[in-house]
């Protein structure tokens, strides 16, 4: 099994969710993070203009069984982009084992 961790623009979340829904990936967890990267955002606070690279982003963690990996990546890459700097990153890593707490099942059955 693989874990996909993906950092996207908050404003793209609904589209990504919809895209995942299309391919029936209806199981993941997400939370809001601050991202530091190439994108810069201009702010003014009480007369101090500053440009910050600390930008609000959404972090999705999705564990999928191996056959699902490519289509999931594909769905995300297609739905999360705007073409402008700051669209985010997608990281894939390996998961050794998965358990579903409710049933104590293990392995691919437990994924969704």
């Amino acid at each position, binding site marked *: 099994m693989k874990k996909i961790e993906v950092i996207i623009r908050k404003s793209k979340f609904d589209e990504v969710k919809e895209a995942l829904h299309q391919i029936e990936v209806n199981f993941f967890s997400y939370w809001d993070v601050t991202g530091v990267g190439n994108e810069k955002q201009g702010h*003014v*606070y*009480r*007369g101090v203009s*500053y440009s910050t690279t600390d930008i609000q982003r959404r972090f999705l963690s999705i564990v999928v069984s191996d056959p699902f990996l490519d289509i999931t990546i594909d769905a995300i890459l297609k739905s999360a982009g705007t073409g402008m700097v700051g669209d985010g990153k997608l990281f894939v890593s390996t998961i050794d084992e998965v358990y579903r707490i409710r049933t104590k099942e293990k392995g691919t059955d437990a994924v969704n």
Partner: protein
Amino acid sequence: MEANAVLDLMWIVICGILVFFMQAGFTLVEVGFTRSKNAGNIIMKNVMDLCIGSIGFWAIGYTVMYGETIGSFIGKPTLFYDNVEDMHNLFFQTVFAATAATIVSGAIAGRTKFTTYIIFSFIMTVVIYPISGHWVWQGEGWLTELGFVDFAGSTVVHSVGGWAALVAAILVGPRLGKYTNGKSNAIPGHNLVLGALGVLILWLGWFGFNAGSELAISGDSANAVAGIVITTNLAAAAGALAAMCVSWIRYGKPDVSMTLNGALAGLVAITAGCAAVSPAGAFVIGLIGGSVVVLSIDFIDKKLKVDDPVGAVSVHGVCGALGTLLVGVFATDGGLLYGGGVSLLGVQAIGVVAIGAWAAATAFVVLFILKKTIGLRVSKVEEVDGLDEHEHKSSVYN
């Protein structure tokens, strides 16, 4: 008591209650404009200066200010004021004194020792504020005799607080990370909704602050009171509008926190002249106050490099002085624009300078002594972790 006298007393009590509520406004503005890790400390400071002000002004401050004059300089102090026919005035003056003290709190937020603040606040309420107040409002003070006009306290309350705040902010020094390599960094407040609510509560309370300073509503005072309400409201509106426009021009976008400060700037600026100028005069004073406050915040932050998280020095100090001077320009009776010449303006300037010097000097002495004894500032670790963690062993948000 006869009905007209009752009316006057009732008005003073009601206005005092409105001014009391300004404490909530100050607390919310200060909490909202600073970081969450110090919110509990800010609550404590604001509640405590209200408590200490209430107790201290009754215990001695009121008579230092309004007691029989000693050389037009200070009132003869009596302990534990207890004149049953004057309790409404004691109340109204108490909430004014608490206002002067609380202004300082905002300028030194996020880095000052709690005990030090408490001591300073006490001295502010029973010594610094009532003595200069005596000069103007007791009736026989030396500034009164010169003809100085400060109807509701642009100088007597706000500037005193503002200049003391400036001295305090300089002595305490900037928050860690505020200036790096000579550059000013933004440290955004954590909840501007609370800040906005605070400003609206202050605006509300200001109707009591200014219109209550008529100290009467019966007879001829009635129309005066209504006029004051209008000048106060117009100046606040103009101040916010001007600050929004100036910030829009300077920074490309209408800035929320500057606009809020602009309303306060208009209110502080009109306080001295609210009973002396026309609605149009008030409108212009508000515009000036709201414009100046943006530039002043910028200047103090970036040029003077004094760290004032809520803009207390600019709002209360600078606009308080400015508003007092503008009485000399816009007063329908005696103002420069109304053919009164520069004499009133001159007197106003003397008052502004004298009281400013007094507030700055005494605040300096007190804070300098505190610095050399118990210290002004928390340790670096305490500041970084937040005052709530170390000064109060608790957190306000859980």
